[in-house]
Structure formats: C-alpha cells, structure tokens
C-alpha cells in the first residue's frame, strides 16, 4: 500500500526568519493523524534567512539528522563541536543523555534550505555524539547513497533504520527492495519523480507498507532529489 502525503497538506509555519513545512506534527503544528511513521518522527523542510537560525536548545534521546540542499549551516553544541554543513554532506547527532546545540545560517546573504529529520532511537541514554560526513555528488546521482544507518558506510544511528539520498535526472531510475515486514518513506526534496508509476512533486511524500519495491524515476526537465527511509 502506498499512502501519499502531499506537499500542500503538510503543516506550515512562517516566522519570517524561518519558513518550515512539517511532514509530521511538530511544535505548534499538531495533527494526531500525522505523528510519525514507524521510527521516523520528524521531517521538517526548513528555509532559514541569512544570518538567522535556531539558538541553543536541548534534545534528549533522539537521532537528529540534517541534510542541506542549498546554503550552509553553522553548527555548535555542548560537546564543543563547531562545524559548517553544506550540500552533499550529512550531519547526525545522537542526543542520548542530553545535548544543547544551535544551528545558524552561516551566510549573511544566502538562504539555507535544509531538511531536519528526527528518528526515535532503539535505546535510551546513549552517550551523545556528533558525526558529519561529506560525499561527492556523483555518489547520489542515479543511485542510492546511504546517509545514515545502524552500521558503517555512513553516519551511525541507534535505530534499525536507513536513510538514503538519490538524485535522478529525467527518465533515470533507481529501485530499492523493501524486505518483508519493513516499510519505506519517500520524501521528494527537489524536483519531480514517479514512485512505482505515481507522480510525486517537490515536497510530496509517500509511505510504503506491504510493498516489495520502491521504484523511483526522475520526470520533467530536471528530474528530482529524493530521501528514502527504510524502516522496521
């Protein structure tokens, strides 16, 4: 079964400095029908104005993944980490026993477009950690590039979940096998694609349960960029 979550049905908040679309309930947006999907709890599609950002705030027991589409984010946290995150990089924080962090647009002139993801951890009270990896654009073009998972090859999260990214040119396809008992969430973060024949536009998402495969194809003049979650 494929359940669509259309872009314009998402929660929306515009505070001026921050324009956000929420796939699931978050902050002032609350919809009991959209509290998450399996271990996936949050997907926020954020546009942050130049020089603005999220001041220091705390998290506990959450796997927090940030993926930047455009611009650069400046990260600081209570573990002493200070990094700039840009496109073709992924940042993963395991909040565990507790962290405080801030995320600011590192530029005074350019907007940041980023996706923030929260995944519920399998175990609580893990030691807080920060990871950031970079990859070449080619690694996601026409194929799935693992960004986060429970084992190596990407950033590590404390959950049996895997996050991939792929960028598909028009008519370019990629397929992901969904193992029995597992589910997938597809989030189109840029452009247009088809999922098993169904058209998805930028911001659209789909939950796949009892499906064996997610076949994605780029459509339109530019194709699209997609985040794919493989979830228990």
């Amino acid at each position, binding site marked *: 079964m494929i359940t669509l979550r259309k872009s314009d049905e998402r929660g929306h908040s515009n505070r001026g400095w921050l324009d956000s679309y929420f796939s699931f309930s978050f902050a002032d947006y609350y919809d009991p029908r959209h509290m998450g999907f399996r271990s996936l709890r949050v997907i926020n599609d954020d546009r942050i104005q130049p020089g603005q950002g999220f*001041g*220091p705030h*705390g*998290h*506990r027991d959450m796997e927090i993944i940030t993926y930047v589409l455009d611009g650069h984010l400046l990260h600081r946290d*209570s573990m002493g980490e200070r990094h700039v995150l840009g496109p073709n990089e992924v940042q993963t924080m395991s909040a565990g026993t*507790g*962290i*405080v962090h801030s995320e*600011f647009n590192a530029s005074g002139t350019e907007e940041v477009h980023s996706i923030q993801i929260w995944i519920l951890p399998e175990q609580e009270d893990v030691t807080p950690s920060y990871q950031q990896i970079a990859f070449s654009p080619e690694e996601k073009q026409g194929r799935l590039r693992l960004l986060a998972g429970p084992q190596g090859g990407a950033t590590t999260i404390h959950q049996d979940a895997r996050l991939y990214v792929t960028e598909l040119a028009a008519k370019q396809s990629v397929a992901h096998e969904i193992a029995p008992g597992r589910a997938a969430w597809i989030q189109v973060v840029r452009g247009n694609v088809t999922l098993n024949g169904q058209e998805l536009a930028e911001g659209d998402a789909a939950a796949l349960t009892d499906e064996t495969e997610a076949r994605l194809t780029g459509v339109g003049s530019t194709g699209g960029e997609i985040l794919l979650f493989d979830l228990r």
Partner: protein
Amino acid sequence: MLVTFSCETGDTEKLALSAAVGAVQARAAIRLRRIPDAENSATSEAAIRMRKEYVGPAEADILGADALILAASADTTVRSAPWQNFLSLLLRLSSEGRLGRKVGASIGGLSSALAGLGFVTVTDFSSDPQALGRSVADMARSLKSS
C-alpha cells in the same frame, strides 16, 4: 527551565550550557537567555556571536519556567549593571506573588540574588554546573508533583 547568563568572553556561556545539558539529562525542557550587554559594550568575537544567538530574558520566560538558574562570572554582584533590569523584574514578579513555587540556583557571583524572592533554592557544592542543572530539574519536578 530557564537558564539566564551574562557573558562577554564565552566562559560563562560554557557553564550555562553545561547546566542546561544537566537539565536536559533530567528530562527538562530548557530556555537559554543571555543578559544583554550594557549598551552593547562588549566587542569580542564571542560577544558578537552570542548577541546573535541569544535573546534576552523576558517576563514570559520567567513565568513559564518551573526553575531558574542564573549564571555569571565570580566577580558579578547583584549591583552589576547588566543584571539590574532582570533582577528588578524578578523582584517585581515576586512582590506581585507571581513567582509561585519555583526552584532557583546560581552559578558564580549571584548567589544572593534569589534570596528573599520565594525561590526554593538548590545549592550544589560540587561546582559542577551539569550536576546543578540535574539537581534543579529534579527538584522542580518533585516540587511540581508534590
């Protein structure tokens, strides 16, 4: 929990962050607020950054918190200029009976600031701000549930 601090160099900010982490460890929601510099006098790189990252404490921050931690350098006193507005606000809210049963603690030189304002004060003798943050959050939770 509201963690309010004054800092120009980044040193006290670290203590405030550490207390906030302790509160998060004790499963408290936190707000970090920085006392504005006196007439924006501080010009260090850290001060300029902090001016951007933090907002000053507002009445709603205090009223919405079950606990309050003040963090300042050791040589800060209740007469230090940057703190005057905030301490006056606390005094007014206390005199209006609007502070309720809140827990309070301090790091650095403001140990006497909360005296007489009706706070249930927590003292941590370990000089560990993270432990203090945990203790204050735990105390606030038990006070709320009692």
